[in-house]
């Protein structure tokens, strides 16, 4: 990219979902072999192009830069009208990405069975940013942004229906957001743990089989989480899923290369376990069936803004603040608006990777237009910064106090979770910036300010108040159902900084 090229300019048909692999040809004896052998002396692996029939059979190495079907856009070369299917279209990320992509010329389809709405309702909460029914959202997308989303109400685990829809649409990329994304929800009791694992693990496993049969060339963008890695107390770097080539295991005066092997996973809830299980299922499917996937180890997402969701109140995406589905910054801002001290668990020295909503959308777009090679299981750590939870609380409190004239305080609670409260953290996140041209654009202060702007609207403040009982954590990893006791309340700026600092390795 240093030579001014777009990040995916040198990708080839080998990466392109429009390529149909047809076998190897040995033209030395005007011969033909039908078996697909990826490497072989003087044998040409040949493909046909779904979009350029006139090329006949050819070797898969036209670059995106050379191919007229790939056009320059803001985030790299994009396959014209690329068909992207979003599983979990109604959710916080699914909806935002749908509008984002469709507004940039992608043909977007998607499914959802409103599991998220049901789960949040079941826990007695609601999204703090009101969202209308799906039909109204789709209408608003058409009226306000002039985009059409091909949506079907469907359960990810209804494999018959899903297969039919995928056969009908033939998506060129599938983004899989259709999982229940909550550690505390998975720790409520046996039923919740089982439901989370059933939905997530079996849903993904079924999807992989459908992709094998119907769209093997389509890339799967599977959402993992940084939480799969845990937070090793040794400070060992969290590589991007697989060990780099020069990693070495040394033991008993002997050495082995770890290059290319899966790095250790240390999940810390049954939800995270479901994500780890997904990781292995996707990894195996790529190995067995030549599927291709990015496993996206996403940091905690926060924020409310993209131009598309901000275009009209009916286009907004949901924002949860309850203990089960609210993510940390989103909860903090809501708490600040409502006047509750921001809830830090334990020491508050936990370090987490985070990324603003709009930056996350950009990352996803860059990955969608850079599909992995056939059989390639690749992992990216999608974070724009590492932050200590108590520092995040300070930032939210400062923005609230200085720009919105609030009186925000911070409280430390007994930690309902089983997790390290003080730990080093080094995250390697090189692929997005170096291979995919990503450069974060949204600072935490800026996004937090936008959130206050929205959440301090009267109708939203009212909604927070209506469900204020869902804010304090009661789901403990031990199984007890008891609100966490308050260890300490303090004002921002009172605490001295210290302890470990996160280290984000992007170069």
């Amino acid at each position, binding site marked *: 990219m240093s030579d001014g090229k777009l990040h995916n300019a040198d990708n080839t048909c080998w990466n392109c979902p429009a390529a149909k692999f047809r076998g190897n040809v040995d*033209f030395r*004896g005007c*011969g033909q072999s039908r078996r697909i052998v990826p490497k072989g002396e003087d044998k040409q692996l040949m493909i046909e192009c779904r979009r350029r029939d006139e090329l006949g059979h*050819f*070797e898969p190495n036209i670059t995106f830069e*050379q191919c007229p079907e790939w056009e320059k856009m803001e985030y790299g070369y994009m396959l014209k009208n690329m068909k992207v299917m979003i599983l979990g279209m109604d959710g916080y990320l699914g909806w935002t990405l749908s509008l984002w992509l469709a507004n940039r010329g992608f043909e977007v389809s998607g499914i959802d069975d409103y599991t998220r709405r049901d789960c949040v309702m079941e826990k007695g909460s609601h999204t703090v940013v009101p969202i209308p029914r799906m039909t109204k959202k789709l209408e608003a997308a058409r009226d306000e942004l002039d985009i059409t989303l091909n949506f079907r109400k469907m359960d990810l685990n209804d494999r018959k229906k899903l297969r039919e829809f995928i056969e009908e649409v033939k998506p060129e990329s599938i983004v899989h957001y259709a999982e229940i994304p909550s550690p505390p929800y998975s720790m409520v009791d046996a039923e919740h743990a089982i439901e989370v694992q059933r939905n997530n693990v079996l849903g993904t496993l079924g999807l992989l089989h459908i992709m094998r049969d119907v769209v093997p060339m389509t890339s799967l963008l599977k959402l993992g989480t940084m939480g799969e890695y845990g937070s090793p107390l040794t400070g060992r770097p969290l590589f991007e899923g697989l060990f780099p080539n020069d990693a070495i295991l040394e033991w008993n005066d002997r050495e082995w290369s770890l290059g290319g092997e899966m790095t250790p996973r240390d999940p810390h809830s049954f939800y995270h376990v479901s994500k780890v299980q997904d990781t292995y299922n996707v990894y195996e499917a790529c190995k067995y069936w030549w599927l291709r996937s990015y496993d996206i180890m996403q940091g905690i997402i926060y924020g409310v803004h993209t131009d598309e969701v901000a275009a009209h109140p009916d286009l907004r995406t949901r924002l949860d603040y309850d203990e089960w589905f609210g993510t940390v910054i989103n909860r903090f801002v809501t708490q600040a608006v409502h006047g509750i001290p921001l809830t830090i668990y334990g020491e508050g020295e936990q370090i987490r990777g985070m990324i603003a909503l709009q930056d996350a959308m950009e990352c996803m777009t860059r990955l969608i237009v850079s599909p992995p090679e056939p059989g390639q299981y690749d992992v990216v750590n999608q974070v724009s910064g590492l932050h200590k939870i108590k520092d995040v609380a300070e930032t939210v409190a400062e923005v609230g106090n200085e720009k919105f004239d609030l009186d925000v305080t911070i409280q430390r609670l007994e930690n309902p979770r089983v997790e390290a409260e003080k730990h080093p953290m080094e995250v390697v996140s090189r692929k997005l910036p170096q291979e995919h041209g990503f450069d974060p654009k949204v600072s935490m202060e800026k996004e937090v300010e936008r959130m206050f702007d929205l959440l301090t609207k009267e109708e939203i403040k009212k909604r927070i108040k209506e469900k204020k009982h869902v804010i304090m954590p009661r789901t403990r990893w031990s199984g007890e159902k008891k609100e966490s006791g308050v260890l300490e309340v303090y004002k921002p700026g009172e605490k001295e900084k210290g302890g470990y600092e996160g280290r984000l390795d992007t170069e």
Partner: protein
Amino acid sequence: MKLMTGNHGSEPKKVIIGIDGVPVDLIRDLADRGRMPNVESLLSEGEMSAMRAAIPEISNVNWSSIVTGKNPGEHGIFGFTDLIKGTYTINFPDRRALKASPFWEDEERRYVILNVPAMYPAPEINGIFVSGFVSPQLGKAVSPDSTLNVLEKMDYQVDVDSEKAHKSKRLFLDQLFETLEKREKAYKHFWEEKWDVFMLVFTGSDRLEHFLFDAYIDEEHEYHERFVEYFEEVDRIIGDIVDRLGEDDELVMLSDHGMELIKENVNLNKVLEDEGILKTGNKPSERYRNIREGTKAFVLDPGRVYLNKKDKYPRGKVGKDEEEVFLDEIMDVFEELVCDGEKVIEEVHRKDEIYFGEEVERAPDLVLTPASGYNLKGSMRYEDVFEQNVFKGKHTLNDAFLYSKNSDLPEEPKVEDVRNLIDD
């Protein structure tokens, strides 16, 4: 007794039998030796002549000329491979790239066209069409769609899997006979359809000769008998077809190119690299993407030389005003190429000398024809200029054959002349 088909009316029918890659001397030899008795008797009734193939003498170029009656400058097929415009990416041009009309586009007549090479995917015609090699998917190699079911039931194979020949000659031969048996079944099935023109091409002959031409030459070779038996089978099927013909029905037989033993394979890109005309990356690769800045020319199989033109290729070097100088330089290099004191290149053709028509612009700038026994190669993966490999036979230019039972042949026929015999 003649086995007349039910569809025979007053109009005489026309049957065209192709035998891919068979040199005129081979067919004459096997007929003379009594190993192809049906061909022998046909030779006594009609006229046979050597035929000149297209340049280069590659099956898909030849068959494209045969069915269209046009030279490559008009039909646009110059080899098994081509480069996609503006790239160093190879494609394998098939029927979709053919710029001239094959005879079956005349809807006045009804056709059965079985196994003509380079005609994939199958076109919709007035009749039945089954493509020959290279046909990666049988489903797209047949038309109309209802034909697919018939072929699948008989476990029809378009081609032998040549990968087998690399592992075991014996297995390869078994497959070759099996494929021929399926082809016979298919022809018999389609013979019962209504048609005016029936064209059947045997392609196993080309495969057999590529891998085992030495077995034909050497009567002591362990597979000599099997080689000849294959042609006996072809002859038996030809006899069967002849028996089905009426008195006035016409029969044309032909091959698309000849074949001879390979003395040496010649890596022409290695020659260019040694002369500093071709620059490649450090890592040896079979890909033309490995062509680097500073390259003046490169070669595609078999002997097609392309100037690396500035306005045509991503790392193009040659400007318009430099073309003539470079062409002269490259011609000199190849004309001087020798192996054990023997000239390797018989002739270097400039494209304007051998091609005419609207597609000439896309033609190679030079085409080399080799001296006898030298197999020209445009591979990008090579070690030495001269090398041996698994292949024993190579195509030849001047000794395809053309036979007609009923019509006079043109003098010194060329592949483009066959179309007239079909249309007449």
